[in-house]
């Protein structure tokens, strides 16, 4: 059974079905969308369960010719890295659908205009299909197609359903991403031409480009696209605008999944296709990553808008992920991959809870809140847990990944005379800053005396509990027992790094043996 194609087809069919529903059938549209997304989740679970971590690297391989003239295939397959990200998408979409139940209805606190409900959910499902496709694609061209096409539904979700400055944000998001994507297109074309294999299949292109100069240029083409997507400092400014203006659900998918495509692309394509260039640029990337970590955190502290703040925290977190990828140790890379998943969950729930708050209060300004904890303890509690996950509290999932990234980076061997431990140490200050921005926000929103404007605020209702509960359960569960994910991720990361000719997953050589070898 073509599992992956099915995974892509189901939401597409669902989207079409939702779009074709008659005009007034808003409720039905939501229900259909939810059911479809749950079906996708079930299918994804089936795929995940059948995946054998120690088996072949790529499983569920499907390869059909799509455009033979260009050497393009409908090539799908997953390795551990892609699998967990697909799972992330599949988990988040139903949650987001449930969370966005009324986002298009126009029933929020500040009476936003009513918009087409079925279009919104249809776009969500289209987006889901593309998210799964982009992670499952083993054909670089196909990857690119999904990479770019993904922008469009998100563009409409921001532009049509977002906040006051939505069209500015949407255009900025689209153009920025498009610009990066086009640079990548050039690199994709050049890769095809220079490789001369007449195919875009990723496995056949690994290790083909050997000339260092060529590698560097192509690397840059890919990397800038991914750096914009991820986003790395200084290509980040679209994200706060987009995330702040997007409806909460869309923001979750934007930051939780779409941006992961950037870091995923770095790990999958930048490293494996251009290993030498990747090593050459590592110091640069690490500098950008570390700057992003600290800078994102500092700017986050100064934000007055909740969603912007969360967006800046994400910029900081993406710095961690990029650092983990480019430190190129097994721990850091596995940590980075895990981080992609965990960040999806933690930022997801943070955005969603912030969305609930904003939906009730009608404002995203932190100053408009105060004392929510008193009137809506569950809501505030969920907000706190989400925040704590954002500051990587041990016991919550993001701790494991952040820890692995940092320790992996710290233990990476010095390359070209630069000891990357320095980067890890600077990055660790992000841990302190994270505490400041999260707790300060929490204090201003939930602490202190209850503000008049939030006095009548309702606590989480049943639907919202169902939105928050699974994510928090995942965050805590994975915080204590990340092994299932890591067991899937580690072999894939090892293979990736082997292709970059970095040694396999192992602990640093203990000091005793070092001494022994030295004598």
């Amino acid at each position, binding site marked *: 059974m073509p599992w992956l194609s099915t995974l892509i087809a189901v939401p597409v069919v669902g989207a079409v079905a939702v779009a074709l529903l008659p005009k007034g059938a808003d409720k039905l549209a939501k229900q259909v969308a939810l059911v479809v997304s749950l079906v996708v989740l079930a299918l994804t679970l089936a795929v995940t369960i059948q995946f054998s971590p120690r088996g072949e690297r790529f499983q569920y391989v499907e390869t059909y010719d799509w455009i033979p003239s260009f050497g393009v295939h409908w090539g799908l397959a997953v390795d551990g890295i892609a699998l967990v990200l697909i799972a992330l998408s599949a988990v988040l979409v139903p949650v987001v659908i449930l969370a966005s139940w009324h986002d298009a209805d126009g029933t929020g606190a500040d009476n936003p205009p009513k918009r087409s409900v079925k279009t919104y959910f249809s776009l969500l499902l289209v987006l889901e299909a593309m998210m799964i496709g982009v992670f499952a694609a083993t054909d670089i061209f196909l990857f690119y*197609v999904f990479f770019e096409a993904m922008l469009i539904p998100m563009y409409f979700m921001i*532009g049509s359903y977002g906040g006051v400055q939505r069209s500015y944000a949407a255009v900025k998001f689209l153009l920025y991403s498009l610009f990066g994507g086009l640079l990548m297109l050039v690199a994709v074309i050049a890769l095809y031409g220079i490789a001369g294999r007449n195919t875009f299949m990723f496995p056949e292109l690994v290790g083909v480009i050997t000339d260092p100069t060529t590698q560097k240029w192509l690397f840059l083409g890919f990397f800038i696209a991914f750096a914009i997507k991820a986003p790395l400092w200084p290509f980040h400014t679209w994200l706060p605008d987009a995330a702040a203006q997007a409806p909460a659900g869309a923001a979750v998918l934007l930051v939780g999944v779409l941006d992961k495509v950037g870091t995923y692309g770095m790990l999958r394509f930048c490293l494996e296709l251009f290993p030498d260039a990747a090593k050459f640029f590592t110091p640069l990337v690490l500098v950008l990553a570390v700057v992003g970590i600290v800078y994102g955190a500092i700017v986050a502290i100064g934000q007055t808008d909740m969603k912007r703040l969360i967006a800046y925290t994400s910029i900081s977190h993406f710095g961690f992920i990029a650092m983990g990828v480019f430190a190129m140790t097994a721990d850091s890379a596995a940590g980075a991959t895990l981080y992609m998943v965990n960040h999806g969950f933690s930022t997801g729930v943070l955005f969603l809870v912030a969305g609930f708050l904003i939906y009730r209060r009608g404002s995203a300004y932190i100053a408009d809140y105060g004392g929510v904890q008193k009137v809506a303890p569950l809501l505030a509690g969920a907000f706190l847990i989400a925040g704590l996950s954002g500051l990587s509290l041990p016991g919550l999932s993001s701790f494991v990944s952040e820890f692995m990234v940092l320790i992996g980076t710290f233990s990476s061997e010095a390359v070209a005379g630069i000891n990357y431990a320095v980067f890890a140490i600077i990055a660790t200050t992000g841990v302190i800053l994270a505490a400041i921005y999260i707790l300060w926000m929490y204090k201003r929103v939930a602490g202190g005396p209850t503000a008049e404007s939030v006095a009548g605020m309702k606590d989480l209702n049943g639907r919202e509990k169902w939105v928050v509960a699974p994510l928090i359960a995942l965050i805590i569960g994975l915080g204590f027992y990340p092994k299932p994910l890591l067991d899937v991720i580690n072999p894939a990361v090892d293979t990736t790094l082997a292709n970059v000719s970095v040694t396999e997953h192992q602990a640093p050589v203990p000091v005793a043996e070092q001494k022994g070898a030295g004598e």
Partner: protein
Amino acid sequence: MNGAIEAPTIEYGQLMPMLLVFGAAVVGVLIEALAPRYLRKAIHVPVTLLSLAGAFALIILQAVRDGVPEQASAMGAIAVDGPALFIWGVILVLAFISMLLINDDDQFVAQAAAVPGSPEEEDAVAQGGAHTEVYPLALFAIGGMLLFSSANDLLIMFVALEVMSLPLYLLCGLARRRRLLSQEASVKYFLLGAFSSGFFLYGMALVYGFAGTVDLGGISSALASVGGQDSLLYIGVALLGVGLFFKIGAAPFQAWKPDVYQGAPTPITALMASGTLVAAFGAVLRVFWVALGNLDWDWRPVMWAVAILTMVVGAILAITQTDIKRMLAYSSIAHAGFLLIGVIATGDAEQNSGSLSGILFYLLTYGITTVGAFAVVTMVRDAGGEAGHLSRWAGLGKRSPLLAGIFAFFLLAFAGIPLTSGFFGKYAVFAPAVSGGALGLVVVGVISSAVAAFFYVRVIVLMFFSEPAADGPTVALPSVGTAAVVTIAAAATVVLGVFPQPVLDLADQAASALFIR
């Protein structure tokens, strides 16, 4: 001096598609002369459409049954080779759907000779007068396009240029509304067209002076044999180029395009933006590849500059446009720049056929999308006719989501977003360009695409994210023809964006043997 002239051989079979179009045009003239006024349209429509469809069928028949000829036809005047057949097919398809638009009521002036705003005009409008002459005129133009793209010597090319242009000069001036603009477009197009064809002609003279022949193959072989007169050749090539660049709207010869596209009746704009561009690129390829292929080292740098300038000017100037048709005109300029990248990317035979195939595919995708976009433009109207000003398009997505959605889709195709035909079109041109050593151009192309995306996106923002104006334009209930055009264009844009392989195969096939000389 007993000189019985030997009868020329003309391969009627091969030329039949073109002859059919010209024949239909002549029949159209006869209809004008003989049929009663009230019947004319009823007769014109089937004649026109059937002749175009028939011509298309003949091309297919030709390709399937006889294959691609290896010799030039009509005493070496016309080359019905693979690319020509493909381009003919493309032109005919585009002409057919443009014709459906032209067919629409209310597009053309009731009485061209009546002064705008005069009582005569009011009378003519009241009586429902309409110029049915547009049918034969359009057919002549289409015939000229077919000829232009398959001309195998410069004389035929010049004549074809005029055959193609003269009817268009006329048709540009026949808009029903805003006639002053329309007439202005007409006169500008005419004067500048005549001016530029003067350059073309002088270039032709110089090339003739160099080679002693105007046969494209002959010029090509003369490049190797003639010495000492290179300056004639270079100037000649430059001036030929000017004439052709003018037709495709390459900078700095692009200035007419926005004015004319804006002023002309929209269906004619559609025909020009699609058919003329395709035909002109056919001619460009023939001149620069067939006749001057061995001179590519010399013309390439200049063409680089022109291509870059064209892309940049097209993309940047479009940003601040406020009229939708004008914006599409600038977009068309930018696209001409992208296509020029393909023209530059020459090399060995394999490289050439790759580039050629890309250009052919691009022409098809761009042409169809363009016609579709202009068809949508014809449907958005307010009291004064089409609502050209962009501000009038605000909130269209709320008022008629389907139409706005389709138009947005066309715009995305122009921007080259994946899963639209425009993406593969661009890819098909860029990919061979990179392997042909034009990476720099591709980078410029990509950057201008990004800039260009801005104004496409701006329109989408207007349509979907802005609140509709209170007295905004209405969307006319489309006629069957217009609806068909939009549907066909949208379908083609989707299909070519998702499953382009069959058409790519066709283009590959058409391009595989390159041009005959």
